[in-house]
């Protein structure tokens, strides 16, 4: 039983990280209609910057982290301003594929900067400490991730529902033309959405490179791609769905990993494809994700 509880807690904390990641992705989609395939690149940039600054340049973690997050935000803003915005007149598919190209470019640049190094460990204040709560052993980093996730997600939703900019963003998401007529600058809202995406991705990225992972490496990118199935299964246009999607993915991956022995008829390392299996199962029942809106066909 404690094993299950252990996996549950671990799964929820991992889920919180994925929720942050998926949320940023969904926010950009809701505010601009763009499917941002460069989202993993945002995560990778933030994570890489933080890792590089703390390990190679030995910066203080609490200095490196904001710089890393800032870097991701700047990158997001740059992509929005210089690549997405000029393409505003084109079909959404074209913009989506363009973000794929941008993702490739950023990714290769980061690979180049890594150089001959395979792994970059980040020096964070929590190290490999664990805490024990009634039989459950949890890495401190995961606890911090859970807390940070809850705080950020709550803050986001409060902001989204109540603040002026949050309301503006929801207005643009629901009816861009009317929002524009009401004086809301869509370009500003778009920039804000992308900045949020960058920031959230960078925070998520941090938790994907601290203990228990060895550090920043090429597998960080693979972990970042999980944002897609998480967001899709929750419903691409639902911020609540992103949270649920992230939690579902985090939980299912952790449980699959924990019960790998019982599941070994499904093959080794089945937990790696768990997000996609869950996503396909959800889509079979609800083709627009758990909370996504089904298209209303009007000719």
């Amino acid at each position, binding site marked *: 039983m404690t094993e299950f509880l252990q996996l549950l807690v671990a799964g929820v904390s991992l889920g919180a990280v994925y929720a942050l990641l998926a949320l940023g992705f969904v926010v950009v989609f809701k505010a601009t209609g763009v*499917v941002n395939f460069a989202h993993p690149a945002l995560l990778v940039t933030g994570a890489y910057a933080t890792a590089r600054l703390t390990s190679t340049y030995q910066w203080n973690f609490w200095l490196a982290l904001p710089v890393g997050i800032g870097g991701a935000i700047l990158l997001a803003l740059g992509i929005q301003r210089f*690549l997405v915005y*000029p*393409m505003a*007149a*084109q*079909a*959404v*598919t*074209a*913009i*989506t*594929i*363009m973000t*794929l*190209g*941008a*993702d*490739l*470019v950023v*990714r*290769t*640049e980061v*690979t*180049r900067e890594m150089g001959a190094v395979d792994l970059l460990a980040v020096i964070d204040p929590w190290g490999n400490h664990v805490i024990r709560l009634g039989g459950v052993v949890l890495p401190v980093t995961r606890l911090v991730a859970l807390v940070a996730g809850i705080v950020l997600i709550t803050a986001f939703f409060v902001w989204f529902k109540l603040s002026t900019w949050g309301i503006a963003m929801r207005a643009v998401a629901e009816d861009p033309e009317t929002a524009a007529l009401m004086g809301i600058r869509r370009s500003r809202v778009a920039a804000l959405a992308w900045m949020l995406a960058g920031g959230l991705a960078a925070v998520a990225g941090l938790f994907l490179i601290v203990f228990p992972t060895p550090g920043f490496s090429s597998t960080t990118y693979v972990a970042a*791609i999980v944002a*897609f*199935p998480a967001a*899709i299964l929750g419903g*691409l246009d639902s911020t609540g769905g992103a949270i649920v999607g992230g939690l579902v993915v985090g939980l299912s991956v952790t449980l699959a990993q924990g019960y790998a022995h019982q599941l070994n008829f*499904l*093959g*080794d*390392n*089945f937990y*790696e*494809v768990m997000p*996609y*299996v869950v*996503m*396909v199962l959800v*889509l*079979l029942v609800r*083709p*627009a*994700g758990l909370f*996504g809106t089904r*298209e209303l*066909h009007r*000719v």
Partner: protein
Amino acid sequence: MSDTRLRPWYFTVAGLALLLLIPLNKDSFYDQFNLYFPLTTQTFWLQLGLYAMAMVVAALGLNLLLGQAGQLSLGHSFFVMVGAFTYVVLAGAEKNTSTIHWVGLSWPPLLAAICAVLMAGVCGLLFAPVAARLRGIYLGIASLGLVFVGRHLLLNVWPEFSGGSNGRDVPRFELFGLKFVTAPDPSERLYLGNVALGREELLWYVFLLVVIGAFVYYRNLVKGRPGRALRAVRDRELMAGIIGVPVARYKGYAFLISSMYAGLGGVLYALAAPSRVSVDEFGFILSVELLAMVVIGGLGSARGAVFGAVFVWCLKPVLNQYAEAGSIPFLAKPGGSGLEPGVAATFIYGAALVVLLLIEPGGAAAVGRRLVRTVRRAPAGPAPNNTPNQ
């Protein structure tokens, strides 16, 4: 006064002639005339060309699905993988050693190849109902799931098919008794004039035939009733149904044909491989590369697919080749410092994707059309059966 205008078919014929003569462009050919030609075809280029041709076929399939039918699929590499490994399992021999356990049926290679293509088609048909229920990016990411799940299945659940992470040997192709290998003894080789036809040369001609067939098939589909219906489904799905196109059925057809193209590309890929294929060659990266090929070439355009496939596929090996020789200053030699050619190649086609979509979303095909129009100084007519909805 005779009409000396350059007609398009001159170029086609010239291009075909060139392609036919490339494998014969060897020292041994020129020797018999006591000639010397500096630019002869090395095996490296033939090998590269074989892979590129496999990618052309796969790209044509993706073009049908994305460019014509407008279905965003990131899972195309899954069907390529199915084609490749079905061929390997059907045509390959069983092998059981202490470290290796491969299943193989030792079928005649041609039969195995045809069944591999059909198998890929079956997989496409199985996925089609799922695809019909999903829209846009949901379909794209669900199809991405295909790639990851397929990879997992072949790698971890059925390593006896795939050879696991080490991959497995590809059986040599054979057609009516002619073995497509490079015989070690020169006297046993097939000769055309003075030129010995080894594995790469023989495969080149077979591949060329297949590619031309695939190309013509695609062109005919696009120009005719099926292409018209698919484009209507892509641009105005609701209207297409009301006008009389069975939308779900046509989406299914699009998946069927495109996955068969992908499977055929997979078979060609396996045949092109010098020795082995492994699952990791058919992952997410290949899916993205295929998408890049089709977009860079120009969505919907057959010639664009050829250009895009050759461009994206050949970038890395070409850069590698020249980096090794040290001819490109900023590229690293193996183990040296500087930009790794593989990374540089990805960067280039990624950047090409971004730049093209920013300034000429019609891809290389649109650029080509514009060039031709400027040369001929003709006004623009309707887009030739391929430009997707702006």
